[in-house]
């Protein structure tokens, strides 16, 4: 990566945020006449120039279909595509690149597991355990499966701080629990779940474990072998990569025993009208022409994140979140939703007498982008008794000065409604 080779983006003193911001073209603009402060990173993160240029180079220089071409461009595209798979493998420390399946995103990764592993291995009455803070994408695929085959969805409740009640989680693990599907970091609350402990407990009950890592991958080091989970799902676009590309990590033995997700080209070895032989891993799960540019772009995003350094990112964001939490809590009328001991990247809040949507519109006038609504986690909203929250979510290019503007924006919102 050219930008990082000249001078590191982090040092003992922390991140060189000014230089990092220079790597993100979208941040160099004004919105409503004010510099953009982008606090909607949990929805999607911005893209560094390295990713944008990688996509551009692919389409300008070596756009070709992969795996079957003998011509030069196809070989280049295939090498870049498979090179990105190795980058993903190293990024999450999977044992083999055959365990890295490219999908459209976390949602598709979870649906894939539901419709292949779970649909063939679970029986009516078997239980699937999730938590009360799941994103809809880790609820609905299981509900669909329950309707299809009669499995039972169980939910480990959360408490007022937005933490899973571990004694309840433990209590719900039983002989019928065949699958545990849990979020690593909550998009609505910012809670970092004690996933190591939860995976260990689930596996002690012989349950297969899927971890939804959509929010975790951009903020913390993920090591699927250390975690010892069976499946791990993540999205490229939250990791500073392109939209429409994601990853399903799966333990090789499980993936090999699973039926394919979709049928089509590239996922087969041989097709006759009588019989089809499926391809080896990981291609068995990658039917059709994949999002080649997206995969290569995701590889560039991983290079970029590695260049900044996840340890430095985590330390910087932790400090920024603490600063923002203190500043927001000092605003009269603000109630922070999600006060877990371990949090990452997300500040969800409501304000007395001002609906989140109005907060969002008023902040937009200041050039500040936050998200408002239920964050695809309606059960979390129900639990906290709010129809919606306002949510500021951070990335390593956000600054204290931007947080100060956010706080001033909230004071301004109060004036509008005073």
């Amino acid at each position, binding site marked *: 990566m050219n930008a990082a080779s000249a001078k590191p983006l982090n040092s003992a003193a922390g991140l060189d945020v000014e230089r990092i911001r220079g790597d993100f073209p979208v941040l160099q603009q004004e919105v*409503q006449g004010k510099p953009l402060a982008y606090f909607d990173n949990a929805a999607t993160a911005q893209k560094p120039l390295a990713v944008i240029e990688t996509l551009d180079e692919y389409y300008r220089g070596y756009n070709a279909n992969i795996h079957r071409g003998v011509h030069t461009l196809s070989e280049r595209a295939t090498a870049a595509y498979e090179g990105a798979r190795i980058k993903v493998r190293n990024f999450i420390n999977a044992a083999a690149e055959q365990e890295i399946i490219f999908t459209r995103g976390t949602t598709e990764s979870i649906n894939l597991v539901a419709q292949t592993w779970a649909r063939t291995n679970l029986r009516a009455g078997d239980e699937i355990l999730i938590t009360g803070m799941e994103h809809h994408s880790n609820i609905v695929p299981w509900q669909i499966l329950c309707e299809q085959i009669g499995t039972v969805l169980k939910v480990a409740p959360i408490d007022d701080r937005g933490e899973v009640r571990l004694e309840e989680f433990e209590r719900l693990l039983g002989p019928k629990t065949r699958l545990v599907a849990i979020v690593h970091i909550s998009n609505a609350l910012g809670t970092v779940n004690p996933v190591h402990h939860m995976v260990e407990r689930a596996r002690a009950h012989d349950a297969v474990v899927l971890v939804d890592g959509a929010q975790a991958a951009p903020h913390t080091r993920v090591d699927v072998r250390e975690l010892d989970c069976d499946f791990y799902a993540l999205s490229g676009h939250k990791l500073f990569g392109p939209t429409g590309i994601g990853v399903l990590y799966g333990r090789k033995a499980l993936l090999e025993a699973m039926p394919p997700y979709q049928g089509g080209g590239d996922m087969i070895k041989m097709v006759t009208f009588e019989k089809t032989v499926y391809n080896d891993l990981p291609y068995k799960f990658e039917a059709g022409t994949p999002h080649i540019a997206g995969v290569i772009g995701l590889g560039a995003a991983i290079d970029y994140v590695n260049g900044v350094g996840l340890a430095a990112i985590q330390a910087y964001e932790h400090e920024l979140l603490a600063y923002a939490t203190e500043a927001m809590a000092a605003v009269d009328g603000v109630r922070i939703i999600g006060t877990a001991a371990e949090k990452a990247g997300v500040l969800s809040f409501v304000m007395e*007498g*001002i*609906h*989140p*949507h*109005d907060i969002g*519109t*008023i902040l937009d*006038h200041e050039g500040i982008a936050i998200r*408002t*609504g*239920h964050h695809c986690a309606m059960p979390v*909203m129900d639990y906290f008794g709010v*129809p*919606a929250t306002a949510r500021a979510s951070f990335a390593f290019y956000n600054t204290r000065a931007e947080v100060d503007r956010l706080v001033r924006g909230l004071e301004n919102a109060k004036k*509008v*409604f005073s």
Partner: protein
Amino acid sequence: MDLKDLYQEVIVDHNRSPRNFGAMEDADRRLEGFNPLCGDRLTLYLKLDGDRITDISFDGSGCAISVASASLMTEALKGKTVAEANAIFDDFHDLLTVDNPDPDLDKLGKLAALAGVRDYPTRVKCATLCWHTVHSALEGEEEPISTE
């Protein structure tokens, strides 16, 4: 765009103290409206005498635009016939959605305060949820309506 064009005084006032707010025990029609994007929910209550709206109220929760719009709507529709109500809805809808609208401001009255919403396309649904709900209620619809 000035924020004050959106959050006009009359809107802030109707959000803070919504008129005709509360359940109506003896309503002839009752219908729920829901905006899944924002989580806005309201229930609309109507009392009818023939085709005339003799009483109207609402309850629920939502953003300032949706609450103020519902409040202003109840004031505008009380005593109107169904045909008159539909005509006001058409004018109001045009005000928020049509390019270069030519609204009859006299007819719209205080509802014109919501004109600023047209500059915020994501918020138009907030302002029209109550209108879609009342329209469906007058048509005899009983299933909750949704803006999505």
